């Protein structure tokens, strides 16, 4: 075992920082877009409408069974999208399928009788949604959604394969230039763990805010 040289991290702080920022903003965009698409498809999957359910089932079934890298390379090499749009779109397509399943399972877990009861008591559809459906669905959906958001951060690293300069990409660069891959990878792994912990902490704070409301 050779001596470790942690000063390499300070020397390459700019690369690591810019990689971290790229990972953060790519993940943030991924979280927003995949949530939007996932909630939309998930709601379709929970509608009492066969056609909508079939569409949602096809969407999630197709996208969940393909690795992220396949979608990414298809968008980048075959369709010829630029790197960043390809990465963001692949991330959205990949994770929205999982989020859609989480959302539609959450909605379906609220029994139909509750909605019927609320409607027969004279509540309007908007009220049923806001007062009956949303609080219960949110409580069920929050923990698996947290897992999905951590997965967005992790999957954003795949984008480094099409030269998106994220944390993984910069780590590879440091390894190639200095052979100090161990130090760089340790730092990057620690940063990924910190991001994941921040996501988990943020989501549980959000969940308790929503729960006490």
């Amino acid at each position, binding site marked *: 075992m*050779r001596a470790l040289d942690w000063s390499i991290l300070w020397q390459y702080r700019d690369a690591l920082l810019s990689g971290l920022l790229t990972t953060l903003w790519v993940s943030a965009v991924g979280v927003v877009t995949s949530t939007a698409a996932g909630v939309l498809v998930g709601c379709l999957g929970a509608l009492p409408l066969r056609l909508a359910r*079939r569409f949602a089932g096809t969407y999630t079934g197709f996208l969940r069974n393909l690795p992220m890298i396949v979608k990414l390379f298809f968008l980048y090499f075959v369709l010829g999208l630029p790197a960043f749009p390809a990465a963001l779109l692949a991330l959205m397509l990949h994770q929205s399928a999982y989020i859609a399943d989480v959302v539609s399972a959450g909605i379906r877990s609220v029994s139909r009788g509750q909605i019927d009861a609320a409607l027969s008591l004279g509540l309007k559809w908007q009220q049923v949604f806001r007062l009956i459906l949303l609080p219960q669905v949110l409580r069920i959906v929050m923990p698996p959604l947290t897992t999905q958001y*951590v997965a967005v951060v992790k999957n954003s690293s795949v984008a480094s394969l099409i030269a998106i300069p994220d944390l*993984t990409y910069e*780590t590879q660069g440091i390894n190639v230039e200095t052979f100090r891959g161990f130090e760089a990878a340790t730092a990057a792994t620690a940063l*990924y763990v910190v991001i994941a912990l921040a996501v988990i902490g943020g989501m549980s704070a959000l969940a308790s805010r929503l729960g006490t409301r």
Partner: protein
Amino acid sequence: MIPALRSDRAQDALWYVVVAAAVVLGAYWVPRLEWTAVAPSWFFLLTALGRSWFLAVISIAFGALAAAPLALLRVYGPPGLRHATIALIEAVRATPELMLIFWVYFTMPLISGSQVTAWNAALGALSIIAAAYLAEVVRAGLNSVPPGQLEAARALGLSSTQAFGLVVLPQALRNMLPALVAQFVALFKTTSLVSAIGVMDFFRAVSVTKNAVFAPYALYLILAAGYFVSCAVISRVVRWLDPRYQLLE
């Protein structure tokens, strides 16, 4: 909603029209892809798909072997060891899979001094990933059996090994099955990432073929079909093993 589409039957009819249109389009489009260019590589591609399967199966087996003690430590271990196990499992689960593969391939040799081949690095990294995720599956399975079961078995005079092996474990295994299969599907998709360190898995084989012959659409169709069918097969097997799975889903 369009009134004509109110009934389930009308919606089904529309759906089948859409599916039929897709099939007709596919039947027109697929034979016109660049198959003659791809045909000589069929054996190469099939072998690579087999290699991906082999990677997934071997690493899930290694992972399962490591996952059992990890989960037991996490559930029953002494406090110090338990916290260390939790930290280890959570660190692996929070790290991108690609990063872990790079870790094992590029950085382990630097500290241990000995080279690893890309194949061994891929197997090692995938096994670590499988172990961390399966440990959680096993833990959830063990926790899903009510503690009263173990207490009742002990009260009936079974030794703690018997109570665990004959009462808790069979129930836990049954509860674990769906999550186990979900992990296997996830791991099969993760094998595509080992192409980044040069292992000739299915993804890399398709990429290499794509660089040799110009047939992007045919090759991407093969790529998508290879992964899709493999994952669908794994998911089907569990329905066949456990018909109740659909109810759990």
